[in-house]
């Protein structure tokens, strides 16, 4: 049905958010991905998160690389500007866009080929710099658009649809993000919207480099027995460390928790993250411990999900560069051009 234009009519009593928008106002065009694709669930989680946060759609800039995952920004936030850039280079384009206007929300969408293979360098450096963004990798362990080659996140020993066994070690982007200084790191599963939506909301509210690795099975090329990125495998091996409730700064806390079962983290913008601990020994603010926990469970074949690390008072790139509060793209001659008097002095100093 992807050749049909998406109808605009909707149920008259669809719920509206604080801005008066329905979730339909956060949709894009009809997805052209395969029926059942994990990426479409992530798209729908992004729509739900933005709707629930009452974000003005045009205040978001969606930026992606190349691949199935990078196509998805067309399918959500149709009133946002989007940029489908170059394979593996979303992070640099997003960094530049962010420098030009610090006031927008930057949503970077990438895949495992885009971020772990061709774009590993840019993935690393934008996290190092602390670009204020939400960086989502829709991770299916496979190259979909070119029909089923292994990507760099495919686990060693996993089997491709054509029957090949992967002999290369896999790259764990979450471990790398932790090591590189991302100030918000999470992993989730496209099949678990209850977990994913609050994580996306918390990441949007986070000021700093927020990275979310979302395991997102490829129904066409990586959903068979022997794959470690299939729906069945991920469901069986999912080891969630916590469940998150996101409470925006504008909302009063309505949910009551049993004392001792929940950790509440307040972020820079006043939003609160209420985390119900599932793994008693998990420490949310300790990079080293998080890395150890991840590796320990990975060795047992488990996929650790949840909000894995957060630095609530993180500084972003603009803070590092001490840029002015006005977006750079709004400055004009008066702000930027020193003029002839200054130039005359400059000339005089060179004689």
């Amino acid at each position, binding site marked *: 049905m992807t050749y049909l234009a998406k109808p605009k009519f909707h149920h008259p009593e669809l719920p509206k958010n604080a801005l008066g928008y329905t979730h339909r106002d956060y949709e894009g065009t009809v997805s052209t991905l395969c029926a059942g694709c994990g990426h479409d669930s992530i798209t729908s989680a992004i729509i739900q998160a933005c709707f629930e946060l009452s974000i003005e759609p045009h205040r978001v800039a969606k930026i992606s690389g190349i691949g199935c995952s990078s196509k998805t920004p067309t399918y959500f936030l*149709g009133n946002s500007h989007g940029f489908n*850039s170059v394979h593996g280079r979303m992070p640099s384009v997003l960094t530049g866009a962010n420098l030009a206007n610090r006031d927008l929300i930057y949503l970077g969408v990438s895949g495992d080929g885009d971020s772990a293979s061709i774009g590993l360098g840019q993935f690393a450096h934008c996290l190092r710099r602390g670009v204020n963004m939400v960086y989502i990798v829709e991770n299916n362990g496979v190259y979909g658009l070119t029909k089923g080659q292994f990507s760099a996140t495919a686990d060693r020993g996993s089997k491709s649809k054509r029957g090949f066994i992967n002999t290369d070690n896999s790259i764990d982007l979450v471990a790398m993000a932790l090591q590189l200084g991302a100030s918000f790191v999470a992993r989730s599963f496209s099949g678990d919207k209850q977990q994913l939506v609050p994580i996306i909301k918390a990441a949007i509210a986070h000021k700093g480099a927020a990275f979310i690795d979302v395991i997102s099975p490829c129904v066409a090329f990586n959903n068979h027995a022997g794959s470690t990125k299939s729906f069945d495998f991920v469901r069986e091996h999912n080891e969630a460390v916590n469940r998150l409730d996101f409470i925006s700064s504008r909302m009063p806390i309505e949910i009551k928790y049993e004392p001792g079962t929940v950790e509440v983290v307040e972020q820079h913008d006043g939003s609160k993250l209420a985390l119900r601990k599932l793994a008693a020994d998990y420490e949310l603010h300790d990079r080293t411990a998080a890395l150890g926990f991840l590796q320990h469970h990975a060795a047992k074949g488990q996929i650790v999900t949840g909000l894995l690390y957060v630095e609530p008072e993180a500084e972003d790139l603009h803070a590092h560069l001490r*840029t002015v509060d006005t977006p750079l793209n709004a400055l004009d001659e008066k702000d930027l051009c020193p003029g*002839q008097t200054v130039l005359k002095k400059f000339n005089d100093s060179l004689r």
Partner: protein
Amino acid sequence: MPTATPISRINDFVIRFANVNGSGSASANEMFARAVMRMGVPVAPRNIFPSNIQGLPTWYEVRVSEAGHLGARGGTDLMVAMNPQTFDRDIAGIEPGGYLFYDSTKPLPPSKFRDDITVIGVPLTAICNREYTDPRQRQLFKNIIYVGVLTALLDIDVKVVEQLIGEQYKGKDKLIEPNIKALHIGRDYAILNLQCPLGIKIRRANAVGDRIFVEGNSAAALGAVYGGATVCAWYPITPSSSLADAFTKHCAKFRVDPDSKKAKYAIIQAEDELASIGIVIGAGWNGARAFTATSGPGISLMQEFIGLAYFAEIPAVLFDVQRAGPSTGMPTRTQQCDITSCVYASHGDTKHVLLFPEDPAEAFDFGAQAFDLADRLQTPIFVMLDLDIGMNQHLSRPLAWDDSRKYDRGKVMTGAELEAGKDFGRYLDVDGDGIPYRTYPGTHPTKGSFFTRGTSRDRYARYTEEGAPYVDNMQRLIRKLETAKDMVPRPLIATAGKPTKYGVLYYGSTSPAMDEAIHMIEARGHALDRMRIRAFPFHSSVNSFVADHDFVFVVEQNRDAQMRSLIVNECGIDPVRLVPILHYDGTPITARFIAKAIGDHLDKLKVKPMKVTS
């Protein structure tokens, strides 16, 4: 006495300093050049340096020319030979009748010298060892001591150098006195022991005017400041790094908000050239003026992104400070060798706008104008500098800015216009000039958003792989380039004193050598019309200039006659009408080279064919 008559000229000679890299000679040599300028005599210094921090040979050539010739000349009249590694070849490069000034502490056999030059020995090392105990001081003051010797040999007013020392160490006043002392140690030695002045000397003149002494990279970076650049992303590469460094320095001075102390700029030293251009494109897409500075290898790495910026129509400015390629080539030597790789950069059918400044003043002008052009044309603009312009100090007309000038932000549709119901199609050619309207992200809640992509799309930015909209779009991009022809700096023409069938085309740093060569060519009895190309796409006058002459020389600094190929390709000109004059050994092109190559060619044409009778 030398066997050749010693050269005797005032305010017209070439002095070359041969030094060891990292010995601190650069600032002393620059002070020497500046002293000549302060005496009112035009001067053109050139640094010839290795890809090395310490130990390899380096030269500093100073051309002194009251007549105002600022190109490299070729040959050396006075060699200041301070590097034993290169002593023999340095001596070989001296003109007959020229002068050698060397450190005579260690006696050298007569076979090391030539009998047609004047040899001036000063025991510099012995003097330094006597005067200083600290080895570092011995080295540093040696440089100032030889400048002192030169003030006597060349009759330079020592007060001028004293004043320069005062200016250089302003704020570090403790250093002024010992430097002035060193200067006089050298000068006094020369006056007591040597025949001063030499046949070549400096005489006060008034030929500098209001010109300034500035490096092209610094001027280009200041152009970016004046042109409103707020985002700079770059990766270190010789010879462009000093452009980004200069931008950083200028911004720290001119772009910090006095109240909040916050920066009205963002500079990122990226992880590589791909990220640099990606950041520039992201910023340009989002409405900031952004640039990168790089050299040939960086341009190679940026190819894919440049195609995206061309096709998705995103403003970007690239300063390419060219160096000798291919590959790592000669990374500290100059060439004009990236014309082809820039003009057709990226895969598929692409064509880009190139600007060719001749000197720092134009690097400033074009550096600022590039941002207006990028916004107006919504495409990458290349400012084609080279190592000679970028990293050498040039005597240049003062930089100037018209305070009434407004930035041309191009066709940007505003929220108010969208609200009023104006039709927005991102790739819709409303005005027939090939340039569509764009919107910045975040402009309007429900109107004017679009999806930017490198894939084909229709006029309303909707993805399509249909042939007709693709062709429509590619044709519009060509229309846009046609529009650009009348926006970019026009070629400048200088006609010969009398009608001639021959012309010469040149561009960029060839300019000063060409200006001088024309006199030498005229002296050989030939007349030549000149055109200096300042931009691509070519203005129609390039076609007519070639059409108006039987044939035209194209002078450039690369092996493959890249500009000539571009003219042949883009103007549909018969290649036989364009005669390539090529200089590409990594040194700046000289007037002597141009005059000989063109003069010899024209001489041959003057020879009347003999009548053969049988």
